[in-house]
């Protein structure tokens, strides 16, 4: 059998190894000298200066340039939401390039093909309005990709010229571009307002609104609606379904991206591999309650649900860590009258047991955390349950409400006493913080690797996007099982770091112990 084992005879190195060789390093050095780069001494001096308090003050006084932002834009969130519905094609009204970015972004994070289309507005459309692009686009998309639903969101360009989606879609239907009965929900998602979590919220509200209008309210179906929010861990949804099954609760997930962004390899590429069945989504208004698993990506949706669906309960929870998951369990039990299943109680017990095994290693360690609002709050809370001290809690796309909630969370726990909340700040701000008020570890997305390189602070990768490590999205971080995964990642990063600090033979290996 051919094995492709061709290392030895061919002996060609790739860029990772090749350019470490002395001859290349020498040539790079020579080039630096020749191109009048500042000398190494000056570079070091400035580099040291960027680590000072003085620099930090200047950095925090910055008010026009945003450097390394930890957020994406509204339509990106709208696309993820749309992907979670059966047979649904995300359609973004505006310039084509934005959609190309969304597809690449998700494809690189999930390592999956991602379908989404654009109305491809050009300069003319920017002058005369995008109506003809919308009509032609809907028509083409319907003919080419045969969706059961087209979910329309917008890029900033359509918003700047003020395109009226409602009128445009009506117009497209009247002209026969798409069938009259094809659901075409829409949401205005300008990227100069909010971030991807806002876009998720707007799109979900648009979809639920359109679907409830399509069918009058019926008799109660006894189910619970679960809204995951902007969640890039399909395994979280799978985990929540498993928990609901243990309860014996029938639920509708709005929107269910599991099996869409992590579909099995069957040998058949499918454009619409899964998603919340539209029939179930149409019936969602008849459920007894709607629970969101994130707050800041579901604000408008939940408000709309509570006003329009008149259900027993509409609530946002955050089942990350022990307390967060406990609240979720209790809410489920209260809504359905069913007891907490023994299986999940045992799971909780195993999580607590694991926490007692590891917390000595985590206790008192200082952490920085950045990411989307709900993720950051959930992880901060769980870290404090483990005895860690969240020092910097940074959220580029948080709002005033988030700041209040995060500050309250920190102040209500002794482990949060030294913590500070940084809303609207970027990763260049965080870089300063990691120098002036160092932490032991930090949690964030793949962009954090450059902070790890610059500051030497070890990174635990939780968040979005994660382009440079594989399969993390296939492990849940929600529920007791998810908390166990987070705990495992955190404690093993602590232990890896300890090994790294003690691994020089004869020098630092006094503490290079087998048993930790």
């Amino acid at each position, binding site marked *: 059998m051919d094995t492709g084992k061709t290392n030895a005879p061919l002996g060609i190195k790739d860029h990772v190894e*090749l350019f470490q060789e002395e001859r290349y390093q020498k040539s790079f050095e020579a080039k630096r000298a020749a191109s009048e780069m500042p000398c190494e001494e000056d570079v070091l001096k400035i580099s040291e200066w960027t680590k000072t308090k003085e620099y930090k003050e200047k950095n925090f006084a910055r008010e026009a340039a945003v450097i390394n*932002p930890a957020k994406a834009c509204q339509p990106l969130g709208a696309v993820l939401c749309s992907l979670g519905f059966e047979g649904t094609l995300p359609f973004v009204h505006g310039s084509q390039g934005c959609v190309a970015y969304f597809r690449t972004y998700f494809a690189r994070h999930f390592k999956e093909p991602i*379908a989404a289309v654009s109305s491809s507005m050009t300069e003319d459309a920017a002058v005369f309005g995008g109506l003809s692009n919308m009509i032609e686009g809907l028509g083409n998309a319907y003919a080419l990709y045969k969706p059961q639903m087209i979910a329309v969101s917008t890029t900033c360009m359509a918003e700047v010229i003020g395109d009226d989606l409602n009128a445009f879609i009506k117009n497209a239907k009247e002209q026969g571009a798409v069938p009259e009965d094809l659901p075409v929900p829409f949401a205005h998602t300008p990227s100069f307002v909010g971030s991807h979590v806002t876009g998720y919220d707007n799109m979900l509200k648009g979809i639920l609104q359109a679907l409830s209008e399509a069918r009058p309210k019926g008799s109660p179906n006894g189910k619970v609606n679960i809204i995951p929010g902007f969640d890039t861990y399909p395994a979280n949804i799978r985990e929540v379904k498993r928990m609901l099954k243990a309860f014996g609760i029938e639920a509708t997930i709005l929107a269910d991206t599991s099996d869409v962004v992590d579909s099995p390899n069957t*040998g058949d590429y499918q454009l619409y591999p899964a998603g919340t069945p539209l029939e179930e989504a149409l019936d969602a208004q008849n459920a007894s309650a709607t629970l969101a698993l994130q707050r800041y990506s579901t604000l408008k949706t939940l408000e709309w649900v509570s006003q329009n669906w008149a259900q027993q309960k509409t609530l946002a929870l955050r089942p990350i860590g022990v307390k967060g998951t406990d609240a979720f369990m209790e809410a489920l039990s209260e809504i359905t009258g069913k007891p907490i299943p023994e299986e999940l109680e045992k799971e909780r017990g195993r999580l607590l047991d694991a926490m007692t095994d590891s917390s000595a290693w985590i206790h008192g360690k200082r952490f920085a955390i950045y990411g989307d609002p709900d993720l950051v709050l959930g992880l901060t809370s769980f870290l404090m349950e483990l005895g860690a001290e969240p020092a910097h809690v940074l959220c580029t796309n948080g709002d005033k409400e988030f700041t209040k909630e995060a500050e309250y969370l920190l102040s209500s726990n002794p482990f949060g006493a030294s913590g500070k909340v940084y809303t609207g700040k970027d990763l260049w701000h965080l870089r300063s913080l990691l120098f002036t008020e160092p932490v032991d570890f930090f949690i964030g997305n793949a962009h954090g690797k450059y902070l790890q390189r610059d500051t030497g602070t070890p990174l635990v990768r939780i968040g979005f996007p994660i382009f440079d490590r594989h399969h993390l999205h296939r492990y849940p971080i929600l529920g007791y099982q998810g908390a166990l995964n987070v705990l495992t990642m955190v404690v093993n990063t602590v232990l890896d770091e300890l090994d790294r600090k003690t691994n020089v033979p004869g020098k630092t290996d006094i503490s290079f112990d087998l048993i930790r």
Partner: protein
Amino acid sequence: MAVPRAKELINEPSCGHKQKDKAACRKAPEPGSSSGGCAFDGATIALVPIADAAHLVHGPIACWGNAWGSRNSLSSGPSLYRTAFTTDLSENDIVMGGEEKLFRAILEIAGRYSPKALFVYLTCVPASTGEDIESVCKKASRKTGLPVIPVMAPGFVGSKVLGTRVAGDTLLRRVIGTREPKETTPFDIALIGEYNVSGELWDILPVFTKLGIRVLSKITGDGRFEEVATAHRAKLSVLICSNALINLAGGLEERYGIPFVEGSFFGLKETNGLLLRIVERLGDAALIEKTRAFTQAMTSQTLQTLEPIRKRLFGKRAVLYTGGVKSWSVISALKDLGMEVIATSTRKSTEQDIAKAKELLGDRGVLLTRASGGELLELVRTRGADMLIAGGRNQYVALKSRIPFLDVNQERMRGYAGYKGLIRLAKDVDRALANPVWRLVLEPAPWEAAVAGELAAEV
């Protein structure tokens, strides 16, 4: 609208498209179908590799928030180009106008990072509201003493290729000619359209060094602002990705009388051919002689190294879905490996590209103008191809369909250019085909096999 140049650039005189086919350049994307990158994307691809410049994107979070850090153009020195700068325009900024914020952002960056230059990218929103970023850049340049260069390629003006042309035009009109090289040699060339993806450039530069040819300006892979600015002193420009930056090569010829050759470093035949064309244009008899000997020596050395792997790859069939020059140059490289290409795409290709592709494919080969993921798979199946060689957006479609895949576009993990690159390509193609996972996914699960066996027994 603040982008008059973009429209002119479609009618680039040096472009290989005939007048009747200008639609291919203009290529208004079809509404409602899946689409490629925009002009802004193209402009950043072409310019961001200039490593010692700061690249500031003026617009809402969409444009840079979704895109920063997403290309592996490597630098052997400064890494400033990897830092993402944006004005992150909010609703308020758009209502009040973002020019003032842009000005302050430029000052903040200039003061904090001392870049060699600042490139400021216009995006759809400030272009739609009619912001005059050219004036802002001029003012900021006077204030900071740095070159502050507006790049007028908002996404809505058109496709990625058009944006690359805007980038080329920007270099031509605002950068090249503003600096003088410390010294010149008779064999100075400008390398245009090589972005040093996965260090590919660094397999080519040593070849030039060996021959005694100096790459005066790298445009723009591992490029520096000052060396790009001296390109007008080159004796010859060498255009690697023909269609996208053709206007830059054409402009250098028109303005400074610098002739250009086009070509590719994919495969033995193309690499040898391009090297020979370069030295022939440089016109030095000794250099030509030396290059002939060099290419012959490298050819036999490379073939010898490839011998064991060529035996395995012989007759293997691939579908190729890439664009531009690669639509034929990669065929040539795969043929060097003894493989057969049964289809190739002609996206972003010029007529010359298409003619070359036809020639290399032979009678039975299929020319694809545009194909969706599903159509590609269909082709792979019906034509009995062994693998798909394409770009990142098709990667997961292929893997889902259990088709061995290799990325030759911008996300390729290793460089495939030049002699060493061909060996790396061979190794990666071989590995893509030989990975044991394909046997696992193609075989039915054991219980399925058992069921199939029982059914067969019953019959």
